[in-house]
């Protein structure tokens, strides 16, 4: 008879869940150079990332965080905070959720969405740093606009789904999982669906 594994996910994930690195202690973020927060409690995930920056080199010296979320969410923010230290702001800005998931030793499909907020919060923190330091010109707006916060689905994703055949809100949800958590984005997503259908297919 097989015995149970002693853990539900990968060993790396376990380590970062059991002993999370770089948790922000207390409430004070004043000593940090950039602060970013994404997500909300109703969706089940919220992450805050704070950074200290070596201003001459443009390198992240320290990264701390708070996370409201499941084991995968906690572990992915923890490992992200380790990954970004010593990276330039540009390098850090380009870290993708996929890299985070890989560093964790992989995540089950239904857990991918738990790890997408950490890198977003990091980008928000970097932009916040630029803003505070009079470098607004460097603030990188996300090219795409996030429509569904819960599943991190952008207007670009919606356009792609329409191009691939989605014609109804239900089909859009089937392809993107948009609006399947809190549902607050439904109206906006439906407008975009109609817009892209009109642009590309004239319907």
């Amino acid at each position, binding site marked *: 008879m097989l015995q149970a594994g002693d853990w*539900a996910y990968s060993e790396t994930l376990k380590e970062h869940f059991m002993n999370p690195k770089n948790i922000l202690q207390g*409430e004070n973020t004043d000593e940090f150079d950039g602060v970013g*927060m994404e997500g909300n409690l109703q969706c*089940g995930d*919220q992450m805050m990332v704070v950074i200290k920056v070596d201003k001459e080199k443009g390198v992240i010296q320290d990264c701390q965080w*708070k*996370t*409201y979320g*499941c084991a995968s969410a906690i572990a992915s923010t923890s490992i992200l905070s380790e990954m970004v230290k010593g990276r330039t702001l540009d390098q850090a800005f380009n870290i993708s959720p996929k890299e985070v998931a890989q560093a964790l030793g992989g995540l089950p499909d239904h857990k991918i969405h738990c790890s997408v907020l950490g890198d977003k919060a990091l980008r928000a923190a970097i932009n916040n740093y630029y803003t505070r330091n009079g470098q607004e010109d460097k603030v990188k707006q996300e090219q795409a606009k996030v429509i569904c916060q819960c599943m991190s689905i952008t207007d670009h994703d919606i356009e792609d789904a329409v191009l691939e055949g989605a014609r109804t809100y239900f089909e859009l949800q089937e392809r993107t999982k948009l609006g399947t*958590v809190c549902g607050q984005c439904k109206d906006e997503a439906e407008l975009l669906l109609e817009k892209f259908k009109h642009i590309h297919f004239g319907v």
Partner: protein
Amino acid sequence: MADMKVYFDNNATTPLHPEVKKEMIAAMEMFGNPSSMHAYGREARANVENARRKVAEFIGASEKEIIFVGSGSEANNTVLSLFVCGSSQCIPGSKSRSSIITTKIEHPCVLETSECLGHRGVRVRYLDVDQYGKVDLDQLAGMLGSDVGLVSIMMANNEIGTLQDIETIAKMVHESGALMHTDAVQAVGKVPVDVRKLGVDFLTMSAHKIYGPKGVGALFVRKGVPYCPLIRGGHQELGRRAGTENTLGILGLGKAVEMRALEMPYEEERLLDLKHILRNGIEESIDDIHFNGHPTDALASTLNVSFSGVEGEAILLYLDIEGIAVSTGSACASGSLDPSHVLLATGVNAELAHGSIRFSMGRESSREEVDYLLDVLPRIIQRIRNMSTAYIKGGMHAASR
């Protein structure tokens, strides 16, 4: 590793009762097909019928009213699917009664089957529940009418433990001319269940929630009530459920209810005491919590608590590391993306549903285990809250600190 092993997930499933295990091991050599006329078959038949007697007696039914099935889900599917037949010509006289009423807090096997029936032309309506998970009887009265064929309402809720007044509901349902089904999977063997007193036409029960084996359940169908099998093609169970009987499982179910009849009467008070200690202990040591379910009309074994600013899967996994098994209504632990439909139906907000933990005790649960949990839990909640965005400056619950 953890010093203690605590299993507080008895509403998910239960360990075999030692007596059930003993009887099943002793019967392991019994392989005959109950339909065979020879000695092997007669031995199997005798044991299946013996189990049927025990189950019937336990819920106050007669033997012919008991159909052995593969699970509670199968029993619930069978009853609901009857009404596709009810709306055609299989069951004479019921064509005009093609609507179903159920509740928003049923088990998914009822909700999803209902949804499917909706696609097949059956009109399904869902009753609301109040903040404690009790169905609204006035709303039910308003829905009942000459178009309703079946009302299906669970007796005890698996997540929050709330008990419904099935006896009163069945009277209302019968006065309107409809049939009454109750999913009593979480109730049978935990609270007294007598099908005549309840007045139900169909009742679902399962073995593995009451220290019996998995893969076997029973469906009570009152004599004279129209019926149509879900699984066809055999004369087993008087033609009401095809497929060679799960003889060992059925024997285990029979022993399980026998043991329940002996132990249940002495258990409730002990479990209520434990729940009281657990509830008070949590209330005294942890702030920002919300108890879910009915304070009194609920299973003695079940306590459901929401912890603000904390996600349930994280609690579950930290407790697991400490050797304590519980379950959560969080989306993250279920593989779906929505938190518990039961908690949302009681009006609890999504955050509290994500942060809910169900403790379900059983016959083996002890004071020592509750004390151990109360020792471990506050530290875990504190630890998770320390890393949660909910309690930072400007966070959702910052003001409460």
